[in-house]
């Protein structure tokens, strides 16, 4: 009888552990917008939102730099500020991996270099390893002049080439938009 109780106890313990793990694993939302902005602008006093409706001239400039049409004509940047000083710029954007959009945020420094990239929502059925630090850290300190490219200065995740490519495309787009809107590429 005592032995039976012990077995039941073990079964319940294992079920409990599995239920706990299941609860941890079932969301693909890594960061909500407010969490992402808090994380990216920890040292800033405030975060200001700036929405830009791109003029046809700017859209043309973006196409010239990206070699494809921007998928949207309006983008919102978030500026982390301390007093009047801009600490950094963040863009929340989406790019399709194989089938579904990957939502990510890029923080760009006032010098036009990538400070950080974070995955916010991952919806593909596999390839979620692109959310790992070891993949995303590759973008750090890279700017438009660095020609961010898969198999070049960005190593893809094996088995998740499309998701890796999506992040490369998305971060390049963020840098181009920053250059047009805040950098010296403003037409």
């Amino acid at each position: 009888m005592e032995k039976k109780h012990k077995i039941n106890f073990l079964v319940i313990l294992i079920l409990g552990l599995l239920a706990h793990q299941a609860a941890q694993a079932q969301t693909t939302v890594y960061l909500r917008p407010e969490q992402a902005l808090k994380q990216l602008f920890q040292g800033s006093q405030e975060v200001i939102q700036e929405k830009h409706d791109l003029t046809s001239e700017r859209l043309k400039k973006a196409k010239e730099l990206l070699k494809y049409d921007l998928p949207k004509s309006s983008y919102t940047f978030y500026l982390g500020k301390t007093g009047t000083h801009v600490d950094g710029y963040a863009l929340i954007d989406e790019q399709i991996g194989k089938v579904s959009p990957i939502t990510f945020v890029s923080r760009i420094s006032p010098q036009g270099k990538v400070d950080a990239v974070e995955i916010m929502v991952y919806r593909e059925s596999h390839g979620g390893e692109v959310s790992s630090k070891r993949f995303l850290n590759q973008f750090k300190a890279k700017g438009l002049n660095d020609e961010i490219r898969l198999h070049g200065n960005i190593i893809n995740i094996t088995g998740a080439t499309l998701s890796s490519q999506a992040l490369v495309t998305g971060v390049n787009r963020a840098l181009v938009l920053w250059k047009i809107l805040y950098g010296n590429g403003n037409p």
Partner: protein
Amino acid sequence: MLMKAQKILGMVVMLGLVAASVDAQDPELKITPETNSSETASTDSKYGDKDLLRFGNDKQYVKLGGYGSIRFSTDTAEAVKDTFTFRRFVLTTDAKIASRFRIYSELEFERFRKIELERNVEAAEGGLTIEQEIEGTNQSEIALEQAWFELEFAKYLRFQGGGVLVPIGRFNINHDDNIWNLPRRSLVDRGVPVLPTTSAWDELGFGFNGDVELGEKSALNYRIYVVNGVVLDAELEEVVKTRDPSRDELEFEGEFGISTGTFSQDIKDAKAVTGRIAYSPFLGHEIGFSGYWGRYTPDFLIGKDLTVFGFDWLSKFGNFDIEAEYVVSHFAGLDDVLTSFGEVAGQTEAEVEAEDSPDLETKIAFEPSGLSSTKHGYWVELRYHFRPDWLTNSWVGKNFSDPQLIPVVRWEQAFLRGLVTDFEVVDRTVITLEKENRRVDRITAGLAFRLNPLAVFQLAYEYTQTNDGETLASVTNYLPTEDDKNHSILFGTAFGF
């Protein structure tokens, strides 16, 4: 006291399960109340409007996809014809039934065009007539290459079951045609093969897989399964020959060789274990160790085990990649198995005597097919991702996300130790058992034009050779020639969607 603790723990578990079901609902993504709603809308992919291939929402969906390849090959070896080949067309479905439960399948049409069956049963000429006609295309195959479910407890613990890929080496688990830059699969995985059966090798079973991050730079991936496992099985071949002035011939040949395990009731009361562990110390570098162990003989023969070991490696240095795989398969006690086979079969050949059937020779035969005591081999592939401006900016590469030219070189060897070349049984006794050691070498140099990760055009030159004076037909499954050397030019395309 124990009962009380058990009750409390039970309540905790219930709460855990309730919490799990609450968390299972993916929270809706809201940027900020002030943000333009268009910001959360899906952007168009440069690979096309993929939403056409997807039905449902983020919680439940079915995704349709696939991959395939077509090629043209011209060879110098006799009896190998210049030909276009629709190598394979694979349809995939990926269904997310619940937030952590998915079902994936691959249905392969290999060199397939059509199959037609006609059957007629009627009373005629004072009796019953049954007619059956099968019409199909040569070397065609329809196969369920994968069909499995996966329940994710955590990224590092997923329960998987069904027809799963056997994780030996790195090719079998990454076999989609559009991933590779050469138009023909390796000798180790396909052309000889050194694997017990050709890639994609899947088996029916259950197991676990997972990904573990080790700090910010390293990662570990593992897969382990219990499966039905490969088995020494027979295929029946019918041959009809007209032979003037000799007697015409009708032959039924049972070719016995190693084939994938059944998806039905196993013919052996033993299961196999297989697994792979891959360690990546840094992104772009990975080494894998894999293994397989299990009985390969059916229950009507003596029990003997197959052991497979694999080692694989991938390293990326900027634009340069090096990728390699080594596999060894050892069939224990093959001589004893053949002796056991002889005792069961009684004889390997039987025919109707000439005086009983003067115009038609009718015979049955059993023949071993590709059986070796030990097979081992490796491939090493070097690639360079080259992006000239003229390609990116010209009409050739225009509008593709990252057009590349990729020079590729692959060197490979396969060794067959104790390849059974002649086997004869009379009166339940093996009277002939001849074996030899053989080797196949191949070097391939190619140039791939990759539009994006999903589409590639491939041009390649191949040189293949085996031991002097021996035939390539006896050691490969794609060169039906008596020659010992072959030069090939291949042009192909591979695509995924």
